[in-house]
């Protein structure tokens, strides 16, 4: 079976760990699970007629682990940029991550997830926050780790992109 490493990148508390838990274990907890260093999960996706083993790397944005970040992306086949729909500033962090990945001359497939879509009535991200990104050709999916909305779809989309690439 084919195996691929993917990463989730994004600001604090945007829901990276929650998205992985929702996808891998089908659970959501309202707690903020501080990830210590790196946490790795795996799940098999069925995609384009074949099974793919995803190794999913989650990282904590804590300063003490900054050394991690260089090796975190090493060998990744693709990644998610995660932003929080209630926090415009999280889009800036996602852009920074994107720049960093490109600086490492890694032109990897990625998908931008606008998470916490269940808080639609609180959604504070403006259309223009995302419009710029769409024009840059970024693929955007609205997700909710809480309701599970689009979570499976997001992982399937990224996997498809990975397979197209190789």
């Amino acid at each position, binding site marked *: *079976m*084919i*195996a*691929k*490493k993917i990463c989730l*990148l994004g*600001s*604090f*508390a945007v829901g990276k760990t929650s998205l992985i838990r929702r996808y891998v274990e089908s659970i959501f*907890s*309202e*707690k*903020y699970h501080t990830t*210590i*260093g*790196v*946490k*790795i*999960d*795996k799940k098999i996706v069925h995609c384009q007629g074949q099974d*793919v*083993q995803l*190794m999913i*790397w989650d990282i904590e*944005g*804590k*300063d*003490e682990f*900054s*050394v*991690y*970040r*260089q*090796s975190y992306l*090493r*060998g*990744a*086949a693709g990644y998610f940029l995660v932003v929080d729909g*209630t*926090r415009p*500033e999280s889009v800036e*962090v996602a852009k*920074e*991550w994107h720049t*960093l990945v490109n600086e490492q001359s890694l032109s990897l497939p990625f998908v931008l997830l606008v998470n916490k879509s*269940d*808080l639609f009535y*609180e959604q*504070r991200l403006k259309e223009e926050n995302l419009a710029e990104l769409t024009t840059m050709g970024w693929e955007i999916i609205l997700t909710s780790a*809480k309701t599970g909305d689009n979570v499976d779809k997001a992982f399937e989309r990224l996997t498809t992109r990975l397979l197209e690439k*190789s």
Partner: protein
Amino acid sequence: MLSQSDTERIATTISEAIIQRNLSDKSVAQALAPIIDDAIDNAIRHRPQRITRVIYPIIGPSIRKSVARALADMVQNLNQILESSLSIRSWGWRYQAWRAGMKYGEYVLLKTLDFRVEQVLLIHRETGILLHAENAAGFQVEDPELVSSMLTAVSDFISDSFSRHPDSSLDNIRVGDFILEIETGPSAILVAAIRGTPSKQVSQTLKTTLERLHLVFSREFDRFDGDRTIFASAADLMRPCLLIKHKEHTRPGIPWRALTMLAFFIGYGFWAGYLKVQNEIMYLHILDALQTSPGYVVVGESRNMPRLNIEVLRAPTSEPSREILNRLDTGNWDVAVTEHIAPLDMQEYLLPMIPSMFHLGRDTNFTRDGQALVVTGSLKETQRNNLEQNPLLKSVYSHIDFSSVEVYADQTPEEQQKNEWRQLKATIENIRFQFQPNTAELVSGEEQKIPALVANIESIRSLAEKIPVYHWQLYIVGHANSAGTDTANLRISEERAKLINELLITNHLDAELLLAWGAGNLPNSRLPEHQQRMVSLQLIHSPFIPGTEYP
């Protein structure tokens, strides 16, 4: 060239000499600094494993957990096999295992094996993906794929941290009596999971195997795109790594003799234990008698039954130790007291020794005022407490005068602010609002929690600017108990959250900082049903150091 007696003389005075010199200037430290630097450098270069021991606790737990789980499974299996055997030896082992607090299976493994390589993992270095695993019969690591990824995360971390020394890669990790021996090559990593104490042979075999694997698969390693089929053929190369070495077997003795011996040892054990306790009590008793004699300070002691050496510093006018001992029941101890008669003026004598006794720098100075000890300069709060409570100082000086010393808190103002933040955060997150059944109506009295909460949030807000925490939000999360449908629970929990949200906004909190949502009923809640009708709070905030969440 120094003579033997010279060396001896220096040996006895060297520590005092260093202390004395250090009091007058810092030249000792300056002289030693480069030597210590070298020593540390050396240690990193030659013993990188030591460093991993320091770092490992940070990231080790997750690895440890999966390995421990796998281990528990294995021991479980073994237990079942062994449970049925009832030989004399097995009973002896059972007893030993029980005494050692181990599972029987574990103990048998330990007794019969020097070591056994249970599993070998071939890992792609770049991605951390497991390429192939070879198992010893009957052994299965719970999840070799996760273990592989985590190991690369750990070893990457190590080599990134010490990249100046390219050969300082991770060699092995010890997990209980289980060792992961790690051999890192340019494109792949070979890991052996070993029970017991491996000989050099294991790492040798790993090394040569890894070299061969690189030879055979170098192209495949480089072009690896996730497809692992080809690596199944690595099995033949990897199998020789599953080494095993048995201990020599000894036949059990005649049971009767063994049993008599056992009875004897048990009896002896009790008696020896009793004596030991007796001696311990007596020892404390002797020490106490000397310590509490007027004018006495015990400065050292060593013991080796029946010999007990005690070193004391005593005032010239105090009673000689001989007389104290004569009055005392010393039990089985043969006590020898070395006496140092203190100079007449203890108060003066002790003065220059205080800074080194309490690890104080040159910021703190000591003088005498009659019978009192006067402290000037500055010192930390804990240091002050140490001085204040020290029995020696108490017995020598009439009192300690701290009136002209500047005492500062142990924490910097920044640390204090961060602690304050953590405390406020904890206080806020401990607040829960309870609701009446099936409604978004508060249990009466609950609304009285609002003013204190608002005050706390205001404090958080101003702290956030000082620290700075450049972004934060307060999550107001509604909950429902398990009665009712999921949709109904979700709705009611949402209404509850919104009610609290409204209450906070009417109390002039900035709506931008608040986020209310319902979590419905949490299936795994450990709270009693009636308490599950509630709203809880969560503070989400950026790291303390601005910009650190950026890559």
